[in-house]
Each structure stands twice: as structure tokens, then as C-alpha cells.
């Protein structure tokens, strides 16, 4: 341990690594040094001067955040000299800071307020006029009171270093300096809300939370984010049984200190007018609010009736991928208990042809933190920046350290780090590009690729680009191939998966998945797939996949937190199937008119923050949480509803008293499962026909689930895409719509008129029409043939 330096802080001897700053050494040893601009996750600015400390033999106090330790250094953080310096800085900082704490949202959790208590004077000596700064518009998520700003520049550094966008800056000089965006463009980062946590004063505060509460009135409960496979840790702040706001809970292995805006603001969708408060049953054409007993009797009798007359194979259950592990488990136990294997959570998936060869559950192939250490990566049909923002954050960190990350996508996505190579191609040409990369890899390594893909490789045309991507992967010691959320929704998933496996094998890379939703891993583990039961055990005869259940119109359908017009791969087919079904049970926190149209029973289940359970994140981490607040009105946690429904059917093994009991049962069943992402390479069985125009049913960041879709602040932000058609100029020319502003889109017998945008970022012969948004909910499959005409 010779490389450690001996220093002394306040008389305590410490050994620290060279290069450590005094403030880090002090923080580790538990000495509190006041600071504003220093933040452990940001670069050092040393502009607030609050952390001045006294160092022996130094003529003047030095900033602890920007002073590296040296051998024999003696630091005094509480000496007369240090305290005098800190008090003087405090006086300067307070010169222009308004005394508006009583009306400031930061009051009670303000670093300036806290530190002023320790280092400020009781009265100001400043008699002149304080500066006043105009408010800025930073979008629907962040409120500004720029007069309160003390110019620590944490928000500016966050934008540059973490969010990868330079949205905020500090124009002006001295007294006239102010934090601004250029020409007041709204902040458009998917991580923008973090500047609120970073701001040490009340200059940047949460707009939805504004003037609604004081931090000391709130109690905080920990929870897990229900929107993406990262499993970000949350602090849900609650007052009088209401969720007031959501903040990040630090977890270095997962979300560090950050949170995506989607996770931070989705709580605003919890209390909308369409929250379902009471079970409802349809009698004739009228809906009646009933008690649970009546509703569950009605639901179980209806399902029994269908099973009795058409057989159990006519019962199907669809769940969204954000259900808890316990809910998935009980739902599949119920459906299988009734004699059917028709259960699925892969609502947006179109290609199930190789599901038998899929890994036990979609795993990242490495830990989230390990992504930072990558030296090379290949993204296939992935847009982690908007789909899994904190995965993207890790990839960006790797790229900043020199990792060569490339992508094969259908849209030239706006990525906030430099992609070394980008292939933008038609979804159906993606295999050709992947095969070309695999072909180069086979040449480079001398390994023989599996016979199953020989034809594909032979047909591939190798270009320089493919050579470069292959070389990047082979030259890196730590490399990965990631199959993105979009690839999982494409109709040629099987061939993509096979080629990804080949590329990973040949280049000795890890292989990982970025599945949709918060708990796809939990769904597979629990058995919420038609061909496997809990722990990945194959069933003798696979049930129907999500698509088949709707294609062939199951006679009885159970919808778990699903709005098929927004959540399913093919809304048009889904709606037809639901209309045709004899009996539909919808379990949901929100009720819509569409739902009243097709359902027979609607049961209110508790959404995020009102239920307990477990999410398994993409690295296989089981994270359990309890309800932060009581369920609204008559709504009940999903696991309880399923448990009682099991009793109504007189099924065995539905006697749980808590969600923990359910979890421990799953725990026992899944002991010893090793997350293995590789699958045996198969010859691709299906090659979809290439239509003249293919839809790309991109799911925008704020359209992924029913809670996010109801979060108004998110819906007002720049990332909330509306229904529209986007294609490149070449494609538009071919269709003769180059100069049209509105076009008529027809798919699956449905037509809608949508605005047209010419976007160079879209691949040829494709048109992006977002799924999950109002306006496209009547169309057909997310990746199907469409017809576009000028109006």
C-alpha cells in the first residue's frame, strides 16, 4: 500500500489515493465541508468558493474541491481561518440572493438555507439593490426562479457531461451572468429533471410539484420504477395518502443518483378523472358499479361458461410487461389452473417463430454498471436514449472513454454520443447487414459460422462499414451486442436474434437484450409466456401467443392492465378480437370508453405506488417494494385480486396472505437459474414479404404504458410525439407526396389522415407512424404494409 498518501484532516490521520481532492477525502472520512458547485458526479468547477479550507503552509485558504491531496498535507476545515473564509464567501453569495424562502419551493431542503444557518450572518450589510433575473421557460417539467441562482453551474455541467446536450449555458459576465437556454428553447433531454435535484437553491424546481407541499410534511417510501427494464430506485414522497412527487433513491449499481424524467413525473398520471374506483359489470348494455363479491362472481361465472361451452383453450390472458413478478405468476397460475396455456406479456411482439429457443429470460448479458467498461458495442434495433435512458447513460459514459459503439437501426436516431458507425436500413434489410458483419467476423477469426446461417452469410454483400464494425468488436477486450426494444417488435425478430448470436459468438462479445417494460424478465421467470411455465420449464403443448390470441379471437379474454388500442402490436386486430370475444375481463386502474365497449367486467387494480411486489430488472436483480400509499377507493392490489379469483374457481394453492409469500414461492421454483442470453442458432423460418411501403411503429418514450400516457406534464414535453407520418424525401417522391402536408394512411382496412414530415433520418421505403399515441390507435400492425396517399 505504498501508493497511498498520508494526510491529516482536523488532526485525524488518513491514507488516501493520490489524485483525490481534499473534499473527497473529507467526505469519505465524515468531515462536513460546505459546498455548492461541487458534486461528486460532475466535473470540478471551483466557482462557488464555499468549500475553502485551511491547509498548513498554504498562504491563503484553498478550495477543497479543486485541491488534490499531497503527502503530509494537514487540512483544517474548522480552524478560525477556514471558518472566516467560509463565512465571507457566504456573505457574498447572499448579497444577491432574495429573502423569499417563505414562498420558495426549495425551503426546507435548500442547501443555501442549510449552509446559511451555519455560516451566514443574521443580518445583511448589503444596502444596495439586489439583482433581478427574468424567468426562463424550460418546458413543462422545470420551474425557474433565476433570481435565486447562485451560479454554481451544476445544471450547465449536467447538460454537457451527463445529459449530453448543451441546453443550458451561462451567458453574460459578472453581475450580468445568468443561466439560460439559447433563445429559450425548452429543455429536451430525457434526463432533464435531474437538474432540479442538482440545483442547490430554489432556482430550478419541479413544475408539477410547485406550491403543493413542504418537504418536512412528506414521508418517503422507497419504490422501483415501473417503466423500463433498468429498475431505477425511487423515493416516493407521500403526504396524507397521496403521492406528492418522485425522487431518485441513490443506487450506484443501477441508476446512480439519476432518474429519467419518465420515472420522475409519471406519478402525475395517477389521479386522473378516469381512475376506476369501483368494480363494474355490464348487464345488457348498461354498466353497473358493484361490490367485489358480485364482480368476481360475475367474472368467474362468465369465464366458466366459456370454458364449459368452448373448452379451456378458448381462454386467454394478456398482460402488459409492467406487471409485478407476483402478478405474472398468479395470472399464469390461474390461467394454467383453468387448463389453458394462453398467457402472454409480449404485446408488441410480432415474430414468435423461435420462442422455443429464447433464453430463460431477456437479460442484459452483463451488469448495468459493466456497460461503462465496454470498449465496443453493437446496437441492433435499439434506441436506448429514449427507451432505457439510464442504460444509454452508461453507454454514453463508455463512448466518452473511447468505446466504439455502432448501431444497425431503421431510423438514424438522435443519439447523444458519437456512434462510430451507423447503418440506417429497412427493417427487412437489417439481416443482410448483420450477416455482412458476421461474414467479416468469420473471415477475421477463421471460425466457421453455424450452418444454419450459411445461406444468409453467402448472400450478404460486405462493405467497408461492416468491416469496421466487425473489427471494432474483435479488437475490443470487452464488447457487447445488444438487441433493442425495436428489434424485439420487428416481424423478423428470429433472424435478427440468430444473427446477433452469431456475431456475439464470432466476436467473443456478450449478448444482451433491452426488453420493453419494467418486468419482462419477471414475466419470463414467472411463466407469463404460452410455451413455458415458471422458471422456464417447457409446457407439453404451447398455448397461444399474444398475437395468436387476438388473431384467432379467443372466446374469453383477460386483460391485465392493457389498453389494446395503444399497447398491442396490432390494434385493429386486437379491437376486432375483443368485440368478437364472448367474455372479456379487464383488470385496470383506468377505465376508458373503448374499454366499456368491449369488456364485460372491469376490475380496479392498484397502479404503481399503490401495490406491493417485485420487479426483476434486465440484469436479473429482484427488487421488491411495498405500497407507498393505500389503494384508491375500492381498487385493490393485483395479487390480492388474483388470489381471491383463484378461490372463486376453487383452485388449489391460492391461500397467500401477502405478496411476500407469493415471492418466496417463485423464489423456490426459480432457484439456480443462470441468466444465459445465448440461444442455439436456427435457420430462419420466416422471411416476411417486403411491401412497397413499410410502417415503422416506433413507440415514443411517453407512450409506453397507460400511466405515462396519462402524465400530462410528460405529454406536453418535446419528446411526446403525436401521431404523424415521417418518411425521407426519396420515399415521399416515389409516393408522390413530397409536398403534401397531410396524408391519408390506410392499413388493415382503416384510414386516418395524419400530418406528413419529411425526415432524412428514416430508411428508404419506410414510414414512421408512432404506435401508442392518439391518432394511430385504429391502425394495424406496427411493422406492416401501409398505403399513403396525398389528400
Amino acid at each position, binding site marked *: 500500500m505504498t501508493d497511498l498518501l498520508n494526510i491529516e484532516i482536523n488532526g485525524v490521520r488518513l491514507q488516501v489515493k493520490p489524485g483525490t481532492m481534499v473534499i473527497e477525502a473529507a467526505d469519505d472520512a465524515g468531515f462536513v465541508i460546505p459546498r455548492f458547485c461541487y458534486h461528486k458526479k460532475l466535473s470540478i468547477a471551483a466557482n462557488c468558493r464555499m468549500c475553502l479550507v485551511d491547509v498548513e503552509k498554504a498562504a491563503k485558504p484553498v478550495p477543497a474541491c479543486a485541491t488534490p491531496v499531497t503527502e503530509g498535507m494537514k487540512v483544517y476545515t474548522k480552524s478560525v481561518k477556514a471558518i472566516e473564509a467560509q463565512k465571507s464567501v457566504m456573505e457574498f453569495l447572499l448579497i444577491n440572493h432574495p429573502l423569499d424562502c417563505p414562498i420558495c419551493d426549495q425551503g426546507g431542503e435548500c442547501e443555501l438555507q442549510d449552509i446559511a444557518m451555519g455560516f451566514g450572518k443574521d443580518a445583511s450589510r448589503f444596502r444596495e439593490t439586489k439583482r433581478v433575473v427574468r424567468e426562463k421557460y424550460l418546458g413543462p417539467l422545470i420551474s425557474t426562479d433565476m433570481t435565486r441562482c447562485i451560479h454554481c453551474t451544476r445544471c450547465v455541467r449536467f447538460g454537457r457531461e451527463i445529459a449530453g446536450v448543451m441546453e*443550458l449555458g451561462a451567458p453574460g459576465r459578472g453581475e450580468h451572468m445568468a443561466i439560460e437556454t*439559447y433563445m429559450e428553447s425548452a429543455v429536451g433531454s430525457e434526463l432533464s429533471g435531474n437538474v432540479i435535484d442538482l440545483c442547490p437553491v430554489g432556482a430550478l424546481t419541479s413544475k408539477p410539484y410547485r406550491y403543493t407541499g413542504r418537504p418536512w410534511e412528506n414521508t418517503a417510501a422507497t419504490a422501483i420504477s415501473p417503466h423500463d427494464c433498468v429498475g431505477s430506485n425511487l423515493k416516493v414522497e407521500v403526504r396524507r395518502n397521496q403521492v406528492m412527487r418522485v425522487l431518485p433513491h441513490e443506487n450506484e449499481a443501477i441508476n446512480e443518483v439519476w432518474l429519467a424524467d419518465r420515472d420522475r413525473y409519471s406519478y402525475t398520471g395517477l389521479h386522473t378523472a378516469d381512475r376506476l374506483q369501483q368494480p363494474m359489470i355490464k348487464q345488457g348494455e348498461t354498466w353497473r358499479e358493484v361490490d367485489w363479491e358480485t364482480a368476481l362472481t360475475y367474472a368467474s361465472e362468465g369465464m366458466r361458461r366459456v370454458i364449459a361451452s368452448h373448452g379451456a383453450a378458448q381462454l386467454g390472458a394478456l398482460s402488459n410487461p409492467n406487471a409485478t413478478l407476483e402478478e405474472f405468476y398468479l395470472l399464469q397460475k390461474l390461467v394454467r389452473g383453468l387448463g389453458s396455456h394462453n398467457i402472454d406479456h409480449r404485446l408488441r411482439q410480432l415474430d414468435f417463430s423461435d420462442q422455443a429457443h429464447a433464453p430463460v429470460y431477456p437479460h442484459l448479458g452483463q451488469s448495468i454498471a459493466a456497460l461503462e467498461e465496454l470498449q465496443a458495442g453493437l446496437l441492433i434495433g435499439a434506441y436506448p436514449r429514449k427507451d432505457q435512458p439510464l442504460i444509454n447513460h452508461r453507454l454514453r459514459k463508455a463512448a466518452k472513454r473511447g468505446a466504439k459503439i455502432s448501431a444497425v437501426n431503421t431510423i438514424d436516431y438522435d443519439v447523444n454520443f458519437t456512434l462510430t458507425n451507423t447503418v440506417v436500413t429497412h427493417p427487412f434489410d437489417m439481416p443482410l447487414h448483420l450477416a455482412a458483419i458476421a461474414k467479416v467476423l468469420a473471415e477475421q477469426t477463421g471460425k466457421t459460422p453455424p450452418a444454419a446461417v450459411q445461406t444468409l452469410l453467402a448472400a450478404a454483400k460486405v462493405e467497408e462499414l461492416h468491416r469496421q464494425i466487425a473489427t471494432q468488436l474483435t479488437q475490443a477486450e470487452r464488447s457487447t451486442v445488444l438487441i433493442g426494444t425495436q428489434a424485439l417488435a420487428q416481424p423478423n425478430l428470429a433472424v435478427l436474434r440468430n444473427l446477433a448470436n452469431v456475431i456475439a459468438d464470432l466476436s467473443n462479445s456478450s449478448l444482451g437484450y433491452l426488453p420493453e417494460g419494467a418486468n419482462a424478465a419477471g414475466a419470463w421467470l414467472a411463466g407469463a409466456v404460452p410455451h413455458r411455465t415458471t422458471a422456464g420449464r417447457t409446457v407439453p403443448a404451447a398455448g397461444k401467443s399474444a398475437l395468436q390470441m387476438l388473431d384467432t379471437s379467443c372466446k374469453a379474454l383477460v386483460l391485465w392492465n392493457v389498453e389494446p388500442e395503444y399497447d398491442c402490436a396490432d390494434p385493429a386486430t386486437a379491437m376486432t378480437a375483443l368485440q368478437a370475444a364472448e367474455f372479456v375481463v379487464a383488470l385496470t386502474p383506468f377505465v376508458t370508453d373503448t374499454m366499456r365497449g368491449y369488456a364485460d367486467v372491469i376490475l380496479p387494480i392498484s397502479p404503481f405506488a399503490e401495490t406491493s411486489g417485485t420487479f426483476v430488472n434486465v440484469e436479473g436483480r429482484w427488487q421488491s417494494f411495498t405500497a407507498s400509499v393505500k389503494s384508491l377507493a375500492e381498487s385493490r392490489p393485483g395479487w390480492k385480486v388474483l388470489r381471491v379469483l383463484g378461490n372463486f374457481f376453487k383452485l388449489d394453492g391460492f391461500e397467500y396472505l401477502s405478496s411476500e409469500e407469493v415471492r418466496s414461492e417463485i423464489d423456490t421454483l426459480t432457484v439456480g437459474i443462470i441468466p444465459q442470453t445465448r440461444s442455439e442458432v436456427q435457420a430462419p423460418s420466416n422471411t416476411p414479404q417486403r411491401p412497397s411501403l413499410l410502417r415503422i411503429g416506433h413507440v415514443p418514450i411517453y407512450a409506453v404504458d397507460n400511466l405515462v400516457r396519462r402524465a400530462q406534464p410528460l405529454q406536453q414535453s418535446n419528446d411526446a410525439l403525436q401521431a404523424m407520418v415521417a418518411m425521407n424525401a426519396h420515399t415521399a417522391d416515389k409516393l408522390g407526396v413530397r409536398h403534401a402536408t397531410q396524408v391519408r394512411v390506410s392499413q388493415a382496412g382503416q384510414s386516418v389522415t395524419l400530418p406528413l414530415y419529411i425526415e*432524412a433520418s428514416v430508411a428508404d421505403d419506410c414510414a414512421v407512424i408512432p404506435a401508442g399515441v392518439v391518432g394511430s390507435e385504429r391502425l394495424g400492425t406496427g411493422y406492416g404494409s401501409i398505403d399513403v396517399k396525398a389528400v
Partner: protein
Amino acid sequence: MFAQRNKNQTKLDRITAAARAEIDRWIAKYPPERKSSAVMAALRIVQDQNGGHLSHELIEAVAEYLDMETIAVYEVATFYSMYELAPVGKYKICVCTNISCMLCGSDQIVQHLEAKLGIKLGQTRRDGKFTLKEVECLGACVNAPMLQIGNDYYEKLTPASIDKILAGLK
């Protein structure tokens, strides 16, 4: 995905070919990956091209030309007092009021200039001939008080010398 929309419109044509050639001369002085080092020179060049002030279009054009974020160029343009974000008069009179000049009587110099030109600090005369601007230290403290017009310094100022300077400005 569609955030790139605004970036598609190039603003490079706002910079004249001559100005571009001059900026290139500055870019060549720095390593290729440090193009942004030429930002101060580039802003000065396009400001001259534009008759003495910068427009938002020009700031955006410089950002595009040097591969910088617009806000970063804007920060530079607002930090230094030699850049103007609004039209200025034919003669921009920059008076130093920093400590050395103040101790040597810059208050009186400012007063005299204001009375003589009929405008206050920070204003431009209606006829567009003069702009009066307060600036920080220009590094000529030895001969304080001082002012700058165009590329020239005028030092050891007195009301009488100012009258002579102003008379020389046609």
C-alpha cells in the same frame, strides 16, 4: 428521433466567402479537434462582416462552422465586451471605468462624453454616428483614463483632448 429537425437547415451561407477564408486561417492555427479555439476570431470576423454587430443567425452559423453548440458560442459573444448583439453607431466609443481609470477621473470623462454626444452610457445616437459604451479594464492603466475607438486606444484623457478626438471623427 425528430430532434434533429432544426439542425437540418444550414446557416452557413450567412458567412461570406471572404469571412470564411479568414476564419479558416484561424482554424488552421489549432489542432483539428480543437476547431472551437477559433471562436473568438470567428465572432470578430463575422461581426466586422455584418457592420459591427452579431445577429442570432451569425452566432448559429459560427456554431455550425466550428462544430460547437450554439449556447457555447452565445456564451462567448455575451461575455466579451467587444461583441455587440444589437446594431451600434459608426464610431463605438468604449470608455474604461475600471479601478485605475476611475481613480484617475474616468467619471469626469464619461460625464463630458455624455454631455458632448447627448447620449448616456450604453446608448447609440439617433443619427447612428456614435455609440457610448462602458467597458472593463483594457490594460492601459499606465496612461489612465483611457478609451478605445475601433482599433485605436486614446490615453491620458482630458475633456479638452476628448473634444479634439471627437472633432477628428467624420
